[in-house]
């Protein structure tokens, strides 16, 4: 999932993450309303609370696993079978966001597990073309890559 050249693939959806150099330092991109002091993921086109303009906000790359599951039926979007998803409490913003989990780490999932964002080729987009998806992996692994 970290093969050379994946950076040319499109993201599953625009503007939801940023990849650093050579795939390092990926982080989630969301939005923040300066008037309401609230963060959002994904970034809404306007603040649902005050209808004002939303700034882009880097939501960082780390968090803790709030809850999770492993889906074992035939997946959509060409996702791995099985695949993991969870809600992750992001460090900093405190937002609880849905995320895919590293298919290589499904046997290590537990509530509270420190996680780090990665981005790699995973499945296909709405048009059926291969694409990049953000996913979370155990934090200490991400640090060594």
């Amino acid at each position: 999932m970290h093969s050379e050249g994946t950076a040319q693939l499109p993201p599953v959806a625009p503007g939801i993450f940023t990849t650093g150099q050579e795939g390092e330092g990926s982080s989630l991109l969301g939005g923040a309303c300066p008037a309401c002091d609230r963060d959002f993921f994904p970034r809404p086109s306007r603040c649902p609370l005050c209808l004002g303009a939303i700034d882009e906000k880097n939501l960082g790359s780390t968090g803790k696993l709030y809850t999770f599951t492993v889906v074992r039926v035939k997946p959509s979007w060409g996702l791995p079978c099985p695949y993991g998803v969870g809600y992750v409490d992001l460090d900093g913003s405190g937002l609880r966001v849905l995320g895919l989990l590293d298919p290589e780490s499904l046997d290590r999932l537990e509530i509270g597990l420190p996680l780090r964002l990665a981005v790699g080729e995973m499945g296909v987009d709405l048009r059926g073309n291969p694409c990049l998806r953000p996913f979370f992996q155990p934090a200490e692994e991400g640090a060594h890559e």
Partner: protein
Amino acid sequence: MNEVYLAGVGMTAFGVHAERTLVDLAGEAAGLALADAGLEPGRVDMGFFASATAAPLFKDVTVGQNVFWSVGINQIPIFNLENACTSGSAAFYLACNAIAAGQARAVLVVGGEKMCVPEAGLLNSGATELDTQLGLVTPASFAMRAVRHMAEFGTTAEQMAAVAVKNREHASFNPMAQFRKPTNVAEVLGSPMIADPLTRLQCCPIADGAAAVLLCAKEAVPSLDRCLRVRAWAYGTGDYANPQDMARWGTDYRVCASAYALAGMQPADLDLIECHDAFTIGEILHYEALGLCAPGEGGKLAASGDTALGGRIPVNVSGGLLSRGHPPGATGLAQVWELATQLRNEAGERQVAGAGTGLAHCMGGDKDGDAKSCTAIIITN
């Protein structure tokens, strides 16, 4: 505000109806509801048709007009409604509003699906939603609630399985249920894993089928003999707060409290409940939101027998979605069908003794870790 009466109900068998069309199934349910009430089709003055899958699976739109004309109803206002798993109950809500407001006197609500086709995958909350593209399917959403409930409250896999065992036991007494063979905890937990920790027998199957109800203002009720009163109809959407507490479902609590307040009732006033047991953990969460037990105690309640037929507050005596199958447009109306059958004392072997007050509860959709819709309806005899 006019009082709302439930004058008639109708329902097809739920299962695979490969040779029948949606209009055919829904027309059967509509005809049964009219016959049950003893009302001429020409007296119906407003109609609702609920379906969640007709458009995405068959590109069928405005199906309701076809359904209503198939039972001789034309010219009147007819509305087609999609609201995920609460499609049927949300249509029921609108019908009650129309009668209460004096805008209609006899409203036929029909809901149905034909979804046992190869194109049907797991339900999700819309292909273009980011959550869906990141792998969120409905079983995963409930599985993640289960993981959290187990961690916070010590709820066990066996307690969740007890919901499936109980509801299948109930279904064994219900000729209208799709799956009627009793099961046990070991079989439930040994069935294939869908999304950890939910196994196949803890997830409701899909079904083809339709249900219909006729709601009337008092002066339009053909016969008050078997007529029931709708005491409350509550409907709320999610709050989408972040973070969501996935072990204490705020939207569920809020809508249930609203229904009790509208009816001027307490949980102890209910004799039976049909609730949205699309997944076993769902029924446990709904026990807590409905006030049948303290927050976190739902797993223990499931295993206690108190929610079984003959217990303190029987839940899903029809067998629930887990046994009936879940055609979303029909489900909320099938729950009302069961309440009507019970409140008329016509439920045979699964009759709740002395049933006078029942509640039907439905939930649907998924957004930002919250539900997109929740309904609760209270009916008395």
